[in-house]
């Protein structure tokens, strides 16, 4: 019998789910059968050999970098705060490019210094995307469920649509969708070609009552898809995204304090079970081409 492992290539782990040094995380992820990894800027900045050393370790691992996270609180600032954030964004883009990573994640601002003025937010998102164009990087803009002005994906989508930059799209995190109970039908607003990344996570309780509890849950108590009480909803979400035409990557965005103190292999195996469940039982995508070969699509007629 042929083991059903072809689908695992659609899914990736995130280094934030694992404890320890970068190399150990990369090995554990690769040994569990994953071919891609979501990296955080901290993985590079905190590396013992400096960020260039971290880039070399990532390249040596053979893992494809799903995306690079996360630029926070970028949009809506003015004056020196804006200039400062532009410098931060440029540093992150340079690290992202060094990784040969084509996607940087930016999450909606939580800053009390940021304006909610729509035109200002759009102008800043356009600027961020423009900074990324020469580097061949796409920017996935994600609605944090505790974002100050933008906290649900339809709001993020409105700004993305108004900004109308070819390399600016939506980063989609199932946690925030479930936390705000945004209706699944709202997904039909989206152009699947402009969904640049889908991050999946489950959690253990049904209700999140306050914003504070939302933040705590998001940062400490997430579990892999299939491990929590929202498995059915996650299954519906991924099927819906597939029906809409999304064919991009899925990354497990699982912040969990318990996983931070377990052996890396144990956590990676849990992630693997999650990927197999989603890939084989839920999505049933066709097996990808070997070696991540990506052929250019013929122009659409």
């Amino acid at each position, binding site marked *: 019998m042929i083991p059903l492992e072809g689908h695992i290539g659609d899914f990736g782990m995130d280094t934030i789910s694992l404890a320890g040094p970068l190399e150990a995380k990369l090995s554990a992820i690769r040994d569990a059968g994953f071919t891609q990894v979501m990296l955080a800027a901290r993985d590079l900045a905190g590396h013992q050999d400096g960020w260039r050393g971290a880039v070399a370790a990532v390249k040596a691992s053979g893992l494809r970098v799903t995306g690079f996270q996360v630029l926070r609180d970028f949009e809506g600032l*003015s*004056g020196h705060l804006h200039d400062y954030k532009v410098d931060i964004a*440029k540093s992150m883009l340079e690290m992202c490019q060094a990784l040969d990573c084509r996607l940087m994640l930016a999450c909606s601002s939580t800053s009390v210094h940021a304006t909610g003025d729509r035109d*200002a937010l759009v*102008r800043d998102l*356009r*600027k*961020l*995307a*423009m*900074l990324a*164009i*020469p580097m*061949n990087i796409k920017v996935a803009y994600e609605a944090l469920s505790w974002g100050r002005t933008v906290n649900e994906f339809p709001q993020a989508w409105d700004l993305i649509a108004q900004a109308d*930059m*070819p*390399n600016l799209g939506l980063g989609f995190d199932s946690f925030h969708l479930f936390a705000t109970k945004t209706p699944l039908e709202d997904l039909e607003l989206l152009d699947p070609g402009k969904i640049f990344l889908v991050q999946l996570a489950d959690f253990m309780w049904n209700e999140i009552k306050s914003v504070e509890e939302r933040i705590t849950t998001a940062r400490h108590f997430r579990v892999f898809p299939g491990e929590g009480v929202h498995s059915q909803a996650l299954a519906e979400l991924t099927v819906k995204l597939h029906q809409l035409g999304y064919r991009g990557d899925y990354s497990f965005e699982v912040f969990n304090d318990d996983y931070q103190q377990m052996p890396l292999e144990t956590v990676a195996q849990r992630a693997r079970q999650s990927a197999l469940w989603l890939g084989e039982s839920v999505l049933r995508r066709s097996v990808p081409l070997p070696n991540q*070969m*990506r*052929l*250019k*699509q*013929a*122009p659409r007629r």
Partner: protein
Amino acid sequence: MPIANSPETERVLDREAIVDGPNPLGLEGVEFIEYATSKPQALGQVLETMGFRPISRHRSREVLLYRQGAINIIVNAHSSGTALTQAPVITAIALRVRDAAAAYRRALERGAWAVPARVEVMELNIPAVHGVGASRIYFVDRYKEFSIYDVDFTPIPTVDQHPPALAGMHLFGVVQYIGNDRTEDWTEFYSELFGFSALAAEQRFGILPKGRILRSPCDRFYLQLIEPEPGVLDLDDDECLQRLGLGTADVVATVAQLRARGVEFVASKVGDIDSRGALTRSLMGGVMFELVHDERAQA
């Protein structure tokens, strides 16, 4: 109410110094194109067969200015930091603009990357932003009463500083190779930062009608963006400025003149030379020029 007192207006003025029109930078064509190579004499020979003449030397660096008609080409063999390759690379396009400082600020405000200036004492600080690959886009506003070359270059004695263009050739455009699915990205880049606009897909020039053509807001030159062929493996997505297009009113006659000087051309599909355009044979690992039929008078 005085408009300047409104916080909204102040915010806009804070970010935007220029009122946008169809030509937001006051673009007026290309001041120069720069090549970098570790073989400047060999490239110089190629340029001379194409009708260019060396007219000036840089005061402090191994840099030579070639000219014919209104086309200026700078050959830079001064390695600063990164090693030069033998195969010449187009490393810069200098745009003539109304106000270089304002154009530079406007580009940065919209998300261009500044190129740090590396000027020597008494040299001009020409502002630049990053373009495709390792290339730069300079902004030049001194091209009327006196030129940037008056400051940084010394004329080569006895050489005509304004050699006429061979067969009336003028700069028609620059071809840029881009990665897969990058046409929209680069179209946005050139339209947002410099005011270029995409031509309709059926509007074509010359003999190599691929990709997307962008027209400069001054209507003096074009950029042509070319992706890899469909079905080609997306291995490395190298992007670069690939070749210059030179406009001429009579392609066949220009080809004959250039052939007499030793320039070789790639055979066209319709017999010897197509009156719409011609492509020179690649030399030095990639230097080529495309002739394009263009009735417009030399700019």
